[in-house]
């Protein structure tokens, strides 16, 4: 063989070997992608393993998402009106959005938290805070509808909320934007010493879930940012991070970033209870709204309360301590065993893991490093247990997998870092896209996490999906945490900005879901339980239409006698008792969105016609094969006319009742 042939043979062999390597590498990559796809694939007709509840941020709602598929199941109207179903527009739901400032159609939802029993989500309710006009809502997990909203007086920027204690004794609320308390007109540059915050505790009735404001602790005017309550040994305490201990009132990004350490406020709520019992509190009279939905009456009610119990720390020693924590800490997280309290110092590369035991010891031995407006500041070295060094850039939040590991989200370096609670040793990192805020492991802030996935809730989306103009949805990434290495499984857009989220196994609540409202138990004062009860009643300028909806007609579907200047109330009862047969209701020219009426439910649309004419109304939810025929007319006559007052429908004709 000559040299040329040898060279050719070697070359060919090399090319062949390289192609094998290339094919092999491609196969591995395909296998990984296939592996990920299998892990998130929920076959058609089958269910997701977890219900996840994602706050909607500036949409004021709460998204229900299935995991691992990432499918959006529902968007629950909480602090914002929801044109989809008329929430916040109908007289039945409007009272839920009442505040001491009147009716508010919007807020900013941040931190959903499931009710807990023994430190574990129990699937009864989920709470969520409103940041802008301080409120806390309770959402019933049977109906997945907002059941109650309580306003938080003497506060502003309700951010460290709505975190619950081990047995849902209390929900936290707190002040991110300190204000003059009680509110008054003073120059803003007199912030220092005059502006204050409160850390509030909302009592939850263990049977009904009904919320009431138990007490508020008046605290110095720092920015109270996030909270979490203790578990196990630390169950009597709740922890609140703070920034702006500089008490800056302008250009906070610089002026509130000067101290190397800010504080975690440790609040002993048992001690607060004692002080309340001993009368060591002041009664303030700032009005606040308390709103609740009556399931039987299908109607919300609102009351204004003008009394709150305010604890001043100096009158109740032992109720609050400050733990120094580097630097402008954002999230505060408690290990599942309740032994460690972690401050996620967003402007520091080192996180401090505080020991609850050491904290108690430091309090007992009075190891104080001074005080802030009379609140003892504990000695940092006496409380800190260990540090997580060089964890990442911009650590914000931490969740646990229940196997001894913590997972920290890093905003600046766009990654999730896995480390050991006990030692602070970093074991794994994974990039996320982009700039992750909160992260969520099902039950990841509870005593017993279901540590299968972590969901990254990212603030920046950019190029992750097909572009949709300047405004993009936020993005979430689902990551498998069952192995030694975290594995990215799925990337999906979310509605609004999901700050925090919660999740629990679907099996816990799936079979308890309400399918209908029982018509027999409908105690709505304007309910019409059968077509024979249909009527139209005039009370001066008010016209009440007692209307029914069933496949595929309204009764009445012809209404004559309405005059310009009347206010017409369409009280529509959906007579169906079958699952997933809602009817919609909309009227031409009405200044409110449609109603989406569930089977057995009664809802009201209020309409003030302004011009004479004949106006159609119709069913907006495609309910049946003859949905298109589900329509009717209202005749509107001039104000000075004298039209016949009649109705038709269901093959009958009736006369109005005039009261």
């Amino acid at each position, binding site marked *: 063989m000559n040299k040329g042939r040898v060279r050719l043979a070697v070359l060919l062999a090399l090319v062949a070997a390289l192609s094998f390597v290339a094919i092999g590498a491609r196969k591995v990559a395909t296998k990984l992608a296939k592996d990920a796809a299998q892990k998130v694939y929920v076959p058609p007709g089958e269910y997701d393993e977890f219900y996840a509840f994602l706050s909607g941020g500036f949409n004021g709602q709460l998204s229900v998402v299935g995991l691992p598929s990432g499918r959006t199941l529902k968007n629950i109207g909480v602090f914002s009106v929801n044109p989809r179903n008329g929430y916040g527009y109908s007289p039945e739901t409007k009272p839920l959005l009442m505040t001491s400032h009147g009716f508010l159609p919007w807020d900013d939802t941040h931190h959903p938290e499931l009710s807990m029993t023994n430190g574990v989500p129990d699937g009864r309710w989920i709470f969520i805070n409103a940041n802008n006009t301080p409120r806390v809502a309770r959402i019933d997990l049977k109906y997945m509808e907002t059941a109650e909203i309580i306003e938080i007086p003497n506060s502003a920027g309700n951010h460290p909320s709505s975190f619950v204690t081990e047995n849902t004794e209390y929900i936290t609320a707190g002040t991110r934007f300190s204000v003059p308390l009680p509110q008054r007109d003073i120059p803003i540059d007199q912030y220092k010493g005059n502006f204050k915050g409160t850390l509030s505790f909302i009592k939850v009735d263990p049977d009904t879930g009904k919320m009431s404001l138990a007490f508020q602790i008046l605290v110095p005017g720092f920015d109270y940012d996030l909270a979490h309550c203790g578990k196990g040994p630390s169950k009597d305490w709740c922890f609140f991070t703070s920034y702006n201990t500089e008490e800056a009132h302008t250009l906070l*990004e*610089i*002026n509130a*970033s*000067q101290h190397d350490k800010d504080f975690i406020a440790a609040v002993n709520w048992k001690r607060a209870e004692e002080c309340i019992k001993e009368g060591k509190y002041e009664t303030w009279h700032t009005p606040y709204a308390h709103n609740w939905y009556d399931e039987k009456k299908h109607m919300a009610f609102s009351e204004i309360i003008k009394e709150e119990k305010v604890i001043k720390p100096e009158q109740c020693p032992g109720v609050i301590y400050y733990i120094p924590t580097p630097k*402008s800490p954002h999230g505060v997280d408690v290990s599942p065993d309740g032994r460690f309290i972690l401050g996620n110092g967003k*402007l520091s590369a080192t996180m401090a893991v505080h020991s609850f035991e050491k904290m108690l010891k430091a309090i007992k031995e009075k190891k104080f490093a001074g005080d802030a407006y009379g609140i003892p500041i504990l000695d940092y070295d006496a409380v800190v247990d260990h540090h997580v060094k060089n964890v990442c*850039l911009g650590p914000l939040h931490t969740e646990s997998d229940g196997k001894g590991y913590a997972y920290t989200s890093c905003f*600046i*370096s*766009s*990654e999730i870092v896995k480390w050991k609670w006990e030692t602070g040793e970093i074991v794994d990192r994974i*990039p*996320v*896209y*982009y*700039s992750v805020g909160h992260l969520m492991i099902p039950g990841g802030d509870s005593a017993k996490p279901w540590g299968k996935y972590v969901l990254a809730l990212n603030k*920046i989306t*950019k*190029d992750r999906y097909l572009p949709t103009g300047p405004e993009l949805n936020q993005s979430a990434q689902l990551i498998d945490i069952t192995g030694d290495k975290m594995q990215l499984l799925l990337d999906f857009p979310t509605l609004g900005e999901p700050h925090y989220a919660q999740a629990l196994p679907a099996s816990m609540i799936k079979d308890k879901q309400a399918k209908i409202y029982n018509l027999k138990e409908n105690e709505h004062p304007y309910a019409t339980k059968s077509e024979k009860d249909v009527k139209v009643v005039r009370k001066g300028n008010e016209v009440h239409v007692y209307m029914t909806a069933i496949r595929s007609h309204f009764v009445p579907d012809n209404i004559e006698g309405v005059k310009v200047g009347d206010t017409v109330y369409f009280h529509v009862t959906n007579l169906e008792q079958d699952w997933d047969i809602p009817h919609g209701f909309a009227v031409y020219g009405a200044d409110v969105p449609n109603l989406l009426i569930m089977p057995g439910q009664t809802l009201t649309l209020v309409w003030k016609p302004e011009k004479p004419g004949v106006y159609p109304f119709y069913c907006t939810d495609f309910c049946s094969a003859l949905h298109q025929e589900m329509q009717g007319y209202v005749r509107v006559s001039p104000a000075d006319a004298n039209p016949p007052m009649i109705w038709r429908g269901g093959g009958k004709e009736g006369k109005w009742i005039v009261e």
Partner: protein
Amino acid sequence: MTKAKMPLLGRVLVAISALIAISAFFFPLWHYYLEAPQYREGLNMWIWLHKLTGQVYIINDLNHYVGFMKITEEMYWEFKVLPVLTVILTLWGLWVAFTGSLRAFKWWFGYYILYALFGLVDFYYRLWQFGHTVDPRAPIRIEGYVPPMFGEKQFMNFLIRSEPAAGFYVLVAGFLVAALALLVTWQAGKARRGATA
């Protein structure tokens, strides 16, 4: 013997060198490339003789967290002086080529060396100054970080790559041609000296 003269080839090369130098106005001298998890597409900044281009406003916006100075053309007098020095380099070079004065050529060549040294040393000084003049009140505090002049360097979440760009190579080419002119002139001088001896 009258004043020493350059050989024709040397003069032509000097003229070429001078013209190459002025063409550096049309290309950026240096390129900065920043990459971070949330900037996978990267951020670019190009430094020219007389201006800055690229996403300087985004870089400045990011820099304010750590208190770096805002990068602007106004902040650096070099953007006014370098163009003048370059124009001088070219005009002077053309004059050298025109007169063919050996003495003037040597001075001009020396000027080219000083011009290059000044550019590089001043650039490094500016990088050092940039890293050591941070706002002490910045939210995130950093310790003396000097951006790389050549190659890659990690800074927080950014990988920063710095490399010469076309304009720099143009100037290098100009200098090499000038050096070639020097070589040609030197060899011609040697030959002449050999012939006289």
